[in-house]
């Protein structure tokens, strides 16, 4: 048993010095060799956060990998991974921690390479200040404009313009001032609230913790005093936002809604509106662990109970009753693409907010941004590190705020459902009112009645398979047989539709997705009309066939896999296309240089090596009879 009680009395002086009230999260960004890592190493060193054993290791590493001769190379302290040390570059986001008497700091060190936009966006997403490094010898570069833009896009409102390596230009005041003059006009686009230019040398230590005698002409504060006093960026002005992350139900008597407050102050007794349901209630209790509270501020993870019985689940949001968040299922958003696989308009992605997971379909980008000169360029897709604007629609409504008003409730990521990669990061601009203004026109005669008038059950018979597998041949025989049975049918054939409706589309992955989306919509209208609709398309991707299936009612979509091995389809080569593809004169040909993803759970599989087209059509008729489609 220790006698901690006695010593604790002498403690507050030490704790007060060391437990700083708040934390500033910041990022450093700049071009290669601007000296970001050196600056962070310098800050750690000056704030005494480097221990003797780390310094000893640093001395060892400096002689082995360093670029500073016998001097200590501070950059090596920050460049963590072995491969990077050998190449002398930082390639990912690294987080560093230091503290002074004023506050704690978390620094994201983000790379300066052109191709690593996604890393910088990652670091910026949680930062409230950016240090933009400029090499005094080089001035404002394209990459400076890029980094400033990403900082602004991710919602950072204040930046330090760190003009580094002043020692290399003889501490020339006019050079510093002309660099600042070059940068300032950019703020018309960027819209930062504060830009704080500081001339410094991270290597030598000028203007890092105190004013440098080498630059008496600079009258502003040194870097560290700025970092100690700027606004640490609490989202204080927002009305209450509490996304429900988890429901705690230990027994029948307790139902706690757990989440991290994303805006405003939560108070006991406060009237709240629950979204998206729109129901109202009031806050009965607030707790963190077993500690009950009267109120809780933005950023805290709490558990609340509400008055009355409610059906609330993860992904819902508890908001201020007077100023609730918006709800919508269609948005305009800024997107940063982060995956090697480019964005495919029309394809379904998983849409994740802090607490909700939905399905989103992206429209063609409205534009892609050239982040070096801020020009908008036309685009059909977004590739890795592209930034653009895009409309997207969700499979249901969510509660949200525009990103500029609340970073926590206005942000989302997009996940590729096939690879589970984080494919994109998005910031909601606003809800599209389109979905409200175009109402669905209810008709008195519905599809069942239309089908009944034709004495049939309407459905889609969706043929998929390689080019030359026999889809069209079998579909044609099948339609003749159905016609002979007095059924009302329609065939949508891949080649035919490409002559009209889809004549503007090519064979890139993005165009293939759009091709299928349009055909799915047409097929759905035909099912509405009461027809037995036969779709005969290669439709190579699982995701799009899944999307088509999702558009129809249960049981309306019958997937028919015409299973012909590639070698056999190529041997038949009815249209001579395989020969062209092999010769390289036909690009993006399914099975050759574009993938075919076979169905996993087709309703009907037709192994064409074992049956002819006539037998295949009969097999479909038999299946339809057995399953009450005929």
């Amino acid at each position, binding site marked *: 048993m220790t006698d901690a009680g006695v010593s604790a009395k002498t403690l507050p002086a030490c704790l007060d010095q060391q437990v700083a009230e708040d934390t500033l999260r910041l990022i450093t960004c700049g071009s290669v060799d601007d000296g970001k890592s050196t600056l962070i190493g310098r800050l750690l060193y000056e704030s005494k956060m480097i221990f003797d054993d780390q310094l000893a290791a640093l001395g060892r590493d400096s002689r082995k990998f360093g670029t500073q001769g016998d001097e200590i190379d501070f950059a090596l302290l920050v460049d963590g991974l072995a491969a990077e040390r050998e190449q002398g570059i930082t390639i990912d986001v690294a987080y560093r921690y230091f503290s002074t008497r004023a506050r704690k700091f978390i620094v994201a060190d983000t790379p300066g390479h052109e191709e690593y936009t996604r890393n910088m966006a990652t670091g910026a997403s949680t930062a409230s200040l950016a240090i933009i490094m400029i090499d005094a010898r080089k001035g404002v570069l394209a990459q400076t404009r890029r980094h400033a833009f990403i900082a602004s896009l991710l919602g950072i409102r204040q930046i330090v313009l760190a003009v580094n390596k002043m020692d290399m230009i003889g501490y020339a005041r006019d050079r510093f001032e002309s660099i600042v003059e070059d940068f300032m006009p950019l703020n018309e686009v960027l819209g930062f609230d504060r830009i704080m230019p500081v001339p410094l040398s991270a290597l030598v230590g000028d203007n890092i913790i105190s004013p440098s005698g080498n630059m008496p002409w600079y009258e502003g504060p040194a870097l560290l005093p700025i970092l100690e006093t700027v606004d640490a960026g609490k989202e204080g002005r927002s009305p209450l936002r509490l996304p429900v992350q988890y429901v705690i139900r230990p027994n029948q008597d307790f139902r706690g809604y757990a989440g991290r407050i994303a805006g405003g102050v939560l108070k006991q007794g406060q009237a709240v509106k629950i979204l998206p349901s729109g129901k109202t209630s009031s806050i009965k209790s607030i707790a963190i662990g077993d500690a009950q509270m009267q109120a809780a501020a933005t950023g805290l993870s709490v558990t609340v109970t509400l008055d009355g019985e409610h059906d609330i689940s993860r992904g819902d949001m508890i908001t201020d009753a007077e100023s609730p968040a918006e709800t919508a299922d269609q948005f305009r958003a800024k997107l940063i693409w982060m995956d090697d696989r480019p964005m495919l308009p029309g394809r379904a992605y998983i849409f994740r907010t802090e607490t909700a997971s939905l399905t989103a379909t992206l429209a063609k980008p409205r534009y892609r941004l050239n982040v070096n000169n801020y020009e908008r360029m036309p685009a059909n897709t977004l590739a890795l590190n592209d930034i653009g604007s895009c409309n997207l629609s969700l499979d249901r409504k969510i509660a949200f705020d525009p990103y500029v008003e609340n970073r926590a409730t206005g942000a*989302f990521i997009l996940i590729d459902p096939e690879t589970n990669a984080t494919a994109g990061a998005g910031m909601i601009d606003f809800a599209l009112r389109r979905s409200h203004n175009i109402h669905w026109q209810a008709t008195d005669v519905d599809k069942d009645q239309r089908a009944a008038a034709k004495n049939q059950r309407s459905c889609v018979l969706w043929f998929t398979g390689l080019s030359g597998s026999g889809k069209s041949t079998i579909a044609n025989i099948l339609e003749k047989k159905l016609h002979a049975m007095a059924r009302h049918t329609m065939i949508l054939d891949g080649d035919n539709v490409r002559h009209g409706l889809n004549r503007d589309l090519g064979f890139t992955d993005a165009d293939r997705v759009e091709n299928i989306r349009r055909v799915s919509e047409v097929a759905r209208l035909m099912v509405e009309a009461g027809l037995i609709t036969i779709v005969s398309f290669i439709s190579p991707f699982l995701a799009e066939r899944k999307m088509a299936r999702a558009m129809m009612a249960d049981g309306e979509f019958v997937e028919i896999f015409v299973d012909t091995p590639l070698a056999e389809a190529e041997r038949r080569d009815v249209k001579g296309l395989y020969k062209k593809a092999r010769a390289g004169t036909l690009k993006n040909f399914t099975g050759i240089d574009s993938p075919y993803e076979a169905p996993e759970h087709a309703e009907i599989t037709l192994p064409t090596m074992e049956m002819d087209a006539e037998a295949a059509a009969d097999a479909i008729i038999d299946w339809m009879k057995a399953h009450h489609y005929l």
Partner: protein
Amino acid sequence: MSGFYAEAASADKDRSTAAFGSLEAQAIQIFREVAAEAENPVFLYSVGKDSAVMLHLALKAFYPAKPPFRFLHVDTTWKFREMIEFRDQRMAQLGLDLLVHTNPEGLADGVGPFTHGSARHTEIMKTEALKQALDKHQFDVAFGGARRDEEKSRAKERIFSFRTGDHRWDPKNQRPELWSIYNTRKQPGESIRVFPLSNWTETDIWQYILSEDIPIPSLYLAKERPVVERGGTLVMVDDERMPLKDGEEPRMEMVRFRTLGCYPLTGAIRSQATTLPDIIQEMLVSTTSERQGRVIDADGGASMEAKKQAGYF
């Protein structure tokens, strides 16, 4: 039993809320996220101070319910005896069901740091044992107490750190992690290691332990303990398995430990700090990092990174 706990007077709670609010809130959010998304998560409990803080946060996150996941300790059989006693008492006190796993082949072969060296011992009894336990129970998400301020390669690891089917970490292919939105999706067989204390520093840990009155093993406090000095490292003679070299005589010294692990691999420091406030004060003027006492880190410059790629926590 109070001898096992370093107990401290609670500090002013309001001040601690301001200072720890965002760190605590983030950790709680991470626990809840895993509970909501994972199929079979597990809490890796290693008995040390970071585990103590993490456990405290997990209890907070789900109160008044118990944490909805299991607890696992990978026991190398070379931990300090007091760690095991503390572990069992703490789990019983909280009514938690702890799984304990030891590598059975390693045990049969008598693997230990004295006979096999620190690197082999760590690989077989920690890294390999951990993989065995994760595979055996089909855990898909594992909480660990690692902090980014501990070591350079940790500084780059994500909070939700993805592992391949054979538990490997690929530092070049990490998912970007933006805002507080976590991508928890994975294929069957793949897993995620989750670090709720990513943004905590060693100072944060101690001050939180003090202000929240969190029980920790008394090995962290200075006491007269039998030690021998080897290659500049003070090793505590915790049991008779430790072979003494010619002329080596354990002597009693006032020492404590900054980290806890296998006793032959964990260096003690000379200290008079017998209370938590003493520890904090001592740490604030310290000139060496906490991993300095860890024998395994000195195996080579990129040592931790190499181990992490192979599946070490």
